[in-house]
């Protein structure tokens, strides 16, 4: 037996419960003081410069136009409606981009396990080529080099019910759903018209985001599939599963546990990268906010709106993905 301690009362500076609390409190206080100093200084200087936060401008008429809006918008509507129209445009490209990038990325990721050597190589070349070129350059390439090189007017690419011209993609659709009246694209005064239309700006941005993000998703998927032990493939094979069934019933359910957390950050990147839309003239939230900032001079407020919007979009994506992650995880007790 070691000799028992002389003192039975622990001094406070050696108290293992108290010390961490004191350290926490001290750090918390320092952070608070620094933040309070910065915020106080910001408010003081903004007041001195006459730039203290004010939101009344949100109700003033915007005075500028926004091309291609889902919500009706014209220049006489207030700024907040313009920003909302921009937000809806951002959400539109983000949602379609998520779907497209997931499909393409999964296909490419699985193709890299193909027994077909050509397919496998192509998948690798795609990933290495796309993920090593900056997205901004790719968007400029898709817009100026690919989409704007499309022919226009009568020489546009025409298929039954579909026209692809320099100004956009025109699709046939029911002009009257009750009477099932079908209307195809038609040329009127040198400009194409159709019930369904996607502009080239939207097309270029969507293509750029999908192709870029899919390269990263393909790597996530490849990593997930590779994490499933080879024995699982062999066991499935010996039980008489064909390769497709093996993938669908044995490998992917296990791989998803690895894939989903990785997908989360790729989805968030896609949402943030959509703000590069200005490079190809698409009227997203960032583009509208930039015009607003210039016209109103309310730099701080507009930037706060932007930061808040992208933060909320990304937090929502994160929350959904965390929910999905919870579903696919192995339930252990």
């Amino acid at each position, binding site marked *: 037996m070691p000799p028992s301690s002389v003192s039975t009362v622990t001094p406070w500076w050696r108290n293992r419960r108290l010390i961490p609390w004191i350290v926490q409190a001290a750090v918390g206080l320092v952070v608070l003081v620094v933040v309070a100093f910065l915020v106080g200084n910001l408010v003081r200087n903004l007041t001195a410069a006459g730039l203290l936060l004010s939101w009344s401008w949100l109700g003033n008429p915007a005075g500028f136009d926004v091309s291609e809006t889902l919500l009706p918008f014209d220049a006489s509507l207030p700024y907040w409606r313009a920003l909302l129209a921009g937000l809806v445009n951002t959400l539109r490209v983000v949602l379609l981009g998520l779907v497209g990038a997931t499909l393409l990325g999964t296909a490419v990721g699985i193709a890299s396990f193909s027994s077909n050597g050509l397919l496998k190589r192509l998948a690798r070349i795609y990933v290495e080529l796309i993920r090593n070129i900056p997205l901004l350059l790719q968007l400029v390439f898709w817009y100026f080099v690919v989409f704007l090189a499309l022919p226009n007017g009568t020489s546009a690419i025409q298929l039954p019910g579909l026209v692809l011209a320099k100004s956009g993609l025109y699709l046939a659709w029911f002009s009257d759903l009750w009477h099932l009246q079908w209307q195809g694209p038609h040329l009127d005064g040198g400009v194409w018209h159709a019930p369904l239309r996607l502009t080239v700006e939207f097309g270029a941005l969507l293509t750029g985001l999908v192709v870029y993000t899919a390269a990263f998703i393909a790597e996530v998927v490849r990593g997930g599939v590779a994490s499933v032990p080879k024995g699982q493939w062999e066991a499935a094979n010996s039980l008489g599963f064909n390769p497709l069934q093996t993938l669908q019933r044995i490998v992917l359910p296990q791989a998803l546990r690895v894939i989903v957390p990785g997908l989360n950050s790729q989805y968030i990147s896609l949402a943030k990268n959509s703000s590069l839309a200005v490079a190809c003239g698409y009227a997203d939230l960032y583009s509208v906010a930039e015009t607003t900032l210039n016209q109103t001079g309310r*730099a701080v407020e507009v930037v706060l709106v932007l930061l808040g919007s992208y933060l909320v979009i990304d937090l929502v994506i994160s929350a959904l993905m965390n929910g999905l992650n919870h579903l696919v995880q192995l339930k252990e007790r």
Partner: protein
Amino acid sequence: MLLLRRLAASLPLIASMALVGCASDGGSGIQSQKLATIKARGKLICGVDGKLPGFSFVGSDGQYTGLDADVCRATAAALFGDPSKVDYRDLNSSERFAALASGEVDLLSRNTTETLSRDAAGGNGLSFAPTTFYDGQGVMTPNASGVKALKDLAGKPICVESGTTTELNLADRMRELKAAYTPLKFQTGDQTYAAYLQGRCVAVTSDRSQLAAKRTSFPDPAGHTLLPEVLSKEPLTPATTNADPAWADAVRWTIYALMQAEELGITQANIDAKLAEAKANPNQADLRRFLGVEGEFGKQLGLPPDFVVKAVKATGNYGEIFERNVGMGSKLKLERGSNRQWKEGGLIYSPPFR
């Protein structure tokens, strides 16, 4: 963090305001923080476009030329006696005001239209110097498009640079005409004109001087025409911030000096002779005061006494600057028009040097 990078243009404003102490508290009237900073730095930082022939354009030798660049050079000469003491910053139309407000540039000489909301303390809070180019908004279309007037553009896409007054004027005029159109907005002039040349838009709109300037760099300049309509008034004006009136005055009177020099017939070539004449003849009080031989105009502005001589020597008077960069002596071949001296029926008018 691409978004953050893109916001970087506005963030220095917030960051500097959060971090900078109460430096402006001790302002005691004539003392100018900005002038002192610029003199200590030994260089003027000037915000320009950098891609607009005739106004500010980087040549193959790496030198900036143009009317806007000459305003920077004349100001540097007035400050330091040396027109080369300028650092240029290329700014796009969306970055320019944040760059000026955050102090990243001292002077914005970038074909910027003077407007109420940009001037007002509750708006952008700029302080405008004298207008250096009276312009108007125009619309350019390819000859092959068959567009003869603004109303022919109904239902057609029009390219425009975002964050400009032209964007708003276009919306207003088309609303008056009740003509729906598709605005295609780009962040930089380069993207705007690239999309136009690729045929995405039937027309591109901007200041008439800018359209004429950009047209000179098109592969086929003769294939594009400006529509006859002038959509708006666009007084292109250098600017500083509201925060430092003394610095704004120094810039204002340097530019007035260039205009006054033209009115008095003082040119880059004869400035030395005029100076000698003023020094020799005590009866020429106006000329002596203007050239800083007597009086203390320079001192009152916080500039050297001979700032007018240095500025005119560096760039020539306003008329010379105009002719060399955008007038008949340049590729742009623009008429003086409203930019003639007031005595010839124009709008260029310097208040008296008294």
